[in-house]
């Protein structure tokens, strides 16, 4: 067992992507594969999993204590980073990305690496469609908003209905689990669940596959270590889209 203490990084830039989403750029590059995540230590508060949205950045939606504490930090403040952990996306050939809300975060470095051909991006409204400009530079971007304030008026899954998934070797997906389950359903109908790569969120404590808090039913797959990216065929008969667990290990329906 090799030592892997958190490294200390200093925040060098904070970008307000939307009222509830900020990108924190720091002073060190972390070599990673798009889709891998780090454990972000907010000193005195907690440590939480976050995808790397770039080699030196995380993009965070404020949802609770630790993310609020992150939002209270400024340029020059320090945070701790452990990782990168997990498998990340694995693509070759034609790739479609489907991101919903903050789920665009792990897909962003895949796109900026030039590995995404078509990108379907959904959010509640125009202001939540983050990274859209940059994604449009390297991918063919289609957007959807719940309120119709930009792009297609409706769900990002609607956009998928207009595309033939079979045209793509890989379909990389990250977003709310209900949305991801809907995408999986579409792939199932096309008989290509194995082309889907879904990045899951589960409650994580260790990030290194030992504590058990992120294990999923029925296979006992560890999201932090065996994932966070799983192909659709491994998710089809699972808890995915149905329930998850909280910090104590109790089931919570989605």
């Amino acid at each position, binding site marked *: 067992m090799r030592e892997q*203490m958190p490294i200390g990084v200093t925040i060098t830039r904070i970008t307000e992507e939307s009222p509830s989403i900020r990108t924190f750029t720091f002073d060190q590059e972390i070599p990673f594969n798009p889709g891998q995540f780090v454990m972000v230590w907010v000193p005195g508060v*907690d440590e939480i999993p976050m995808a790397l949205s770039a080699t030196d950045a995380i993009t965070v939606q404020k949802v609770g204590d630790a993310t609020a504490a992150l939002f209270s930090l400024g340029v020059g403040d320090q945070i701790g980073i452990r990782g990168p952990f997990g498998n990340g996306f694995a693509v070759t050939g034609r790739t479609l990305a489907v991101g919903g809300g903050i789920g665009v975060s792990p897909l962003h470095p895949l796109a900026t690496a030039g590995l995404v051909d078509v990108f379907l991006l959904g959010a509640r409204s125009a202001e939540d469609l983050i990274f859209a400009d940059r994604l449009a530079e390297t991918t063919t971007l289609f957007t959807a908003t719940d309120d119709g304030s930009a792009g297609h008026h409706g769900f990002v899954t609607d956009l998928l209905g207009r595309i033939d998934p079979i045209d793509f070797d890989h379909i990389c997906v990250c977003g709310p689990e209900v949305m991801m389950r809907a995408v999986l359903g579409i792939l199932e109908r096309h008989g290509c669940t194995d082309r889907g790569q879904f990045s899951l969120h589960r409650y994580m*404590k*260790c990030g290194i596959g*030992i*504590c058990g808090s992120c294990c999923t*039913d029925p296979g006992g797959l560890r999201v932090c270590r065996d994932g966070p990216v799983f192909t659709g065929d491994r998710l089809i008969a699972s808890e995915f889209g149905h329930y998850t667990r909280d*910090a*104590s290990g109790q089931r919570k329906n989605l």
Partner: protein
Amino acid sequence: MVTLKPGPINVGGLRLNNHLLLAAGILGTTGASLARILASGAGGVVTKSIGPEPKAGHHGPCVVTVDGGVLNAMGLPNPSSGFTRELEAIRGQPVVVSIFGGNPEEFATVAGWFAGNAAGFELNVSCPHAAGYGAALGSDPAIVEACTRAVSRLGLPTWVKLTPNVTDIAECGRAAQRGGATAIVAINTLKAMRISTALRRPVLGNTFGGLSGPAVFPVAVRSVYDLYEACSIPIVGCGGITTADNVVEMMMAGASAVEIGSAVMDDIGIFATIAGDLYAPDGEDPAGIVGCAHA
């Protein structure tokens, strides 16, 4: 290398598929995950420690890896009685339910919930980083005895897991034996901590935690050896095991079976790997190995 004859074994009232159990708190929060480890070659599994109330555990960081080991302060997160439903998927298999409480009554209450579907209990009187639980009780032999008695009374196999963070672990072993333990498990983690020099503060959310992994193996072997001299009930060795030779060494120190935790991190197939090295049709009778290093 010494190899052992394969086959099921009986230890401390339990029948196990081989000598290798999953240690408590390692991938032990869900039935599915325990089933995965059983399917991967473990002879038995110990669950996450379950207590009287659901607990979210300590704030993070909860785990960091260090040179030759793992440092953790999970804070005993557990779903409490809700865990009964996790056991449904693995009913009838060699599943030891690890339990904790703040006093003998709480131990008895928690054990009661699982009396129907646990093959046996492991009493956690040894976690070094949960105020009011674990080692807070386990360093007092009288309390160890009382908690053990409260559970052993139920008539199910009762293993008691001890802490090495005491002046004399043998005294705690004798207390567990007096309380009716059917086996002693040694060791839980060593009380330890690290500081982030970058952030100038303890790295664990809880400040203190427990050290496990190869770093503690020599301490675990010594503890098992001490206990073997002091007690007459079987001992289950735990702490830092990563190889079949480590298993043999623990058995020579006096262990009748072993638990493996941190090594799962580097290789989730560790049970099959070790079993492959440890067992051979022409292997020795395991009974002849147990405690053979004692003069």
